[in-house]
């Protein structure tokens, strides 16, 4: 038994030594010697395993490639979404800049942060990133390029809260574009998309507004300046009021799309905004301004024309006198003042561009035009 065990141990040791020696020989073999052995193994015994490994690597490569393709597609989609968002934001900012340049003064730009409570169906207020330090005060109108957004409810030093036109507390004195109808704008009490509509109440019965009529702030009451777009008439609402009409309005501004607004200061409200939102009722003042500007241009043109005419006549008169003096042999001063140049603003003695001087030694009869000498200046 012990002999068999000893024999077995020797065999084991011998096998181990043999394997180690063979392995070491394989290790120290040159590449050109070991490659045929490896190649023969790969082609025969190990061939199934080689094909399995190749297949697995192919699967892996396909998976990685498809993952990369998916990532590329996802990146493209995200880039597209971002690009669209940037385009929209860019357009809004351009509009705000345009509105700011039209208003010129009396406003505070602010970013609008929507703060709808989860329980609220309708967004009724928004937080603005400008406060009393920037000049925002309570009851200042909040406007967007499209029109009226709301009014400031509270103004903290660095931020403020504005109620939107959807708030139950919102009211605005309004009128039609041709100032034929006046009324008060209230939020419409409805659900869903109708909750964002407005009502124009208190319009006299004799006045009928057509759908599509634009409604603007009237400036009455002093909170909102005249001429801010509120919305357009959709239809007339049936009410129990016998002497007044109520109209449903579609607001010009969508609260969900408002990201940047302008808060009009109290001074600007007092002095008005003019024709910033393109209201027709302000056209009369605009027309007056254009007419006045036209008048002043006409006056200036007439003045210049009269000066030029006077200068031309003066030159002709002097030329006539000089010619007569030369014909009589009298001395003509070369430094005679040039009334034409004086009229054109060139001072005597100032450097002038060289001028082709005409021959003054001989009097020319044709230089005196009878039609200019005989005519009197008009």
């Amino acid at each position, binding site marked *: 038994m012990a002999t068999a065990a000893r024999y077995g141990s020797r065999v084991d040791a011998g*096998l181990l030594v043999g*394997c*180690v020696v063979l*392995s*070491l020989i394989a290790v120290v073999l040159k590449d050109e010697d070991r490659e045929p052995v490896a190649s023969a193994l790969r082609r025969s015994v*190990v061939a199934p395993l080689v094909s399995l*490994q190749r297949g697995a690597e192919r699967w892996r490569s396909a998976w990685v490639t498809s993952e990369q393709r998916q990532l590329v597609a996802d990146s493209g989609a995200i880039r597209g979404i971002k690009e669209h968002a940037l385009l929209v934001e860019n357009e809004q900012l351009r509009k705000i800049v345009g509105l700011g340049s039209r208003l010129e003064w009396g406003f505070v730009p602010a970013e609008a942060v929507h703060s709808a409570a989860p329980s609220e169906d309708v967004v009724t207020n928004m937080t603005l990133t400008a406060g009393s330090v920037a000049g925002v005060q309570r009851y200042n109108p909040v406007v967007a390029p499209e029109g009226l957004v709301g009014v400031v409810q509270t103004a903290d030093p660095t931020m403020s809260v504005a109620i939107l036109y959807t708030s139950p507390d919102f009211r605005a004195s309004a009128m039609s574009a041709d100032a034929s109808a006046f009324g008060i704008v209230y939020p419409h009490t409805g659900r869903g998309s109708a909750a964002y509509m407005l009502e124009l109440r208190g319009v006299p019965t004799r006045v009928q507004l057509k759908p599509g009529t634009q409604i603007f702030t009237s400036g009455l009451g002093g909170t909102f300046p005249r001429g801010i777009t509120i919305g357009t008439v959709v239809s007339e609402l049936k009410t129990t009021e016998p002497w007044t009409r109520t109209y449903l309005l579609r607001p010009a501004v969508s609260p969900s799309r408002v990201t940047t607004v302008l808060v009009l200061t109290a001074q600007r409200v007092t002095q008005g905004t003019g024709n910033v939102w393109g209201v027709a009722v302000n056209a009369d003042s605009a027309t007056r301004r254009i007419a006045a500007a036209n008048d002043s241009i006409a006056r200036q043109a007439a003045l210049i024309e009269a000066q030029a005419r006077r200068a031309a006549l003066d030159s002709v008169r002097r030329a006539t006198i000089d010619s007569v003096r030369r014909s009589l042999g009298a001395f003509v001063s070369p430094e005679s003042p040039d009334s034409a140049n004086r009229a054109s603003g060139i001072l005597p003695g100032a450097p002038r561009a060289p001028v082709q001087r005409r021959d003054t030694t001989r009097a020319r009869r044709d230089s005196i035009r009878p039609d200019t000498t005989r005519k009197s200046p008009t």
Partner: protein
Amino acid sequence: MNWTGAVRTMLVCAILIVLHYTLRPLLAWRASIDFLIVALLLGSVRLRPGAAAVYGFLLGLVADSIAVSPFGAAALAMSIVGFGASWLKAVFFADNLALNGFFLFLAKWIFDLIFLIVGHRAIDPELAMQIFVWSPLAAAVTAVAGVLALSLLKPLMEVRTT
């Protein structure tokens, strides 16, 4: 070990070898699972040390012929590991999962140690990084995967600890 046990063991070893050449390339982990070591230990503990050395040598030759590593390095490492596993199983191997895991960890690390030293033929920082960071990680992963594989394949094979 009777014939049935031998066939079952061969079958499980074959499954593990196939997994080595299918699952490992699919996963492509930096510290990858070495199913060949699991197959080697699984067979070695059921063989005499000499036969285990030959088994390891053959498995190593297969690995060497497919891999781009120096030919013979894996054969040498697996011969030694197989012989050691077969010899040590008589000393302390038992049917215990934690011990099996440790055994697998040790076997894989020793295999990597021999394989890397014989294959590299020079000591450099990369070799040290491989031996002391990536090899232990690969050994741990192999130990966990080996324990899982043995647990799953347990019904298929007859475990003999004597």
